């Protein structure tokens, strides 16, 4: 498991209180409570220093740890997040 994915599964396993594998669909499994989605977004933003914007908001991107990893890689490759982060705060 690569480093990004393992950080994400680490967070997910802690937040959902069970071992979460890279391809587990935790939303479909009904593990998420009403605060979890926001916590996940905030975790990804803080840990990987990026901003999740509404244009990125696609539930599929956050459905599994592997999907989140792909999303993070895409965002890190795109340089425009710096300005966006400043405006969000």
């Amino acid at each position, binding site marked *: 498991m690569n480093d990004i994915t393992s950080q994400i599964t680490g967070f997910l396993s802690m937040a959902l*209180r069970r071992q979460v594998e890279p391809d587990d669909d935790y939303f479909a499994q009904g593990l998420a409570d*009403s*605060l979890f*989605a926001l916590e996940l977004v905030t975790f990804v933003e803080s840990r990987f220093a990026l901003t999740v914007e*509404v*244009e990125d*908001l696609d539930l599929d991107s956050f459905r599994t740890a592997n999907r989140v990893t792909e999303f993070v890689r895409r965002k890190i490759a795109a340089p425009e997040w710096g300005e966006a982060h400043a405006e*969000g705060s």
Partner: protein
Amino acid sequence: MPRAPESGPAAVTTDLSPTEPVDLCRVAADLAADAHDRAARWDQDGGLPDSVRREVAASGLLAADLPERYGGAGLDPLTLGEITARIGGECSALRGLLTVQGMVAAALLRWGTEAQRADWLPRLAGGELTAGFAATEQGAGSALGSVETRIEASGRSDHQELVVSGHKRWVTFGAVADVFMVLGKYEGKPAAVLVDADRAGVDREPVNGQLGMRGARIAHLSFGGVRVPRGQLVAPPGLGLSHVAGTALDHGRFTVAWGCVGMAEACVEDAASHAAVRRQGDITLGDNQLVRSLLARAAVDAAGARQLARRAAEVRAAGPGHGVSETLMAKYAAASAAAEGSRAAVQVLGSAGCAPDSRAGRHFRDAKVMEIIEGAQQVSELHIAERLLRRFGDAARGADRTAGPRLPGESP
């Protein structure tokens, strides 16, 4: 009022740079002073007048934490909190106006497109529009996932319109709001949409005589096939509850928490002022040990709630999405402090606390509502305990890591 000097209003003005926020603190203090004299009448008499609402709108206090480029004052969470406590200590209905505008603005700031932010936020910050948050339904209170309001693509106009149909209840300032953020379902998925109040098919039924928040122009709403441009959908369907409403409710819990801090402190002030001078027989009320017990407990609850609200504000300063757990705990503690403190204050005040113009009596009714809105106390307890189980569960089960990673913003 039994407050530590560093948390008093005087410290607020000195802690800040001498720019906009200081002025808004003064504006809020003036508004609170005005509400002190008039809130009882608003409570008894049909609610916060439109003229006062317009005055608040013009003052710059609405959604004042929005960035300046969207017309806000860029208030930091702590200053926003102090302002909210000041106003909430006098009038929960007025505080509710700040809360709802802040909720809708926060959700749009976070999850609106750039076009939506540019279109709506300056009008919310400038007070041109009063916002309502329409989530609760007859069959959906704490469990908002059960909402039945439908948001559907219109067959007409090449699907560029949406049709909104459903019934919403207990919408704060729903009787007068210009735009509603409506939570519904789009093809079965939770979705949020902005609905202008003047569109055909929007009906309002003002609510009167409810337990508390009587001044808050509460209404039940009907949306009978209301057509809105598709561009008023906020975030893609599927994310309307977890992200859009979630962000709004988180912001609402923050200002409700601070409003409750103000209520709890006001109740301590009223009860102690009365106990110090009111004589029964040969002694003042304050000479009775049992009265002192009531005062002491209320004061400690209020002070504890303030510290939790401050902690939430500090964590939230890191930016959107931070401090959700801290805010939840602060709201839980502050609602309880306001409810218990107002109960004690009415008891100490006796008949004066039961009088129609009693601030403590009004806070007593309003505080009960605070234990229900933006997450009932018992729902908050579930979340608070859930986070404890996360944090300590692994270690207790003998897992490798003794201390798991913390949630974003979680305090040690």
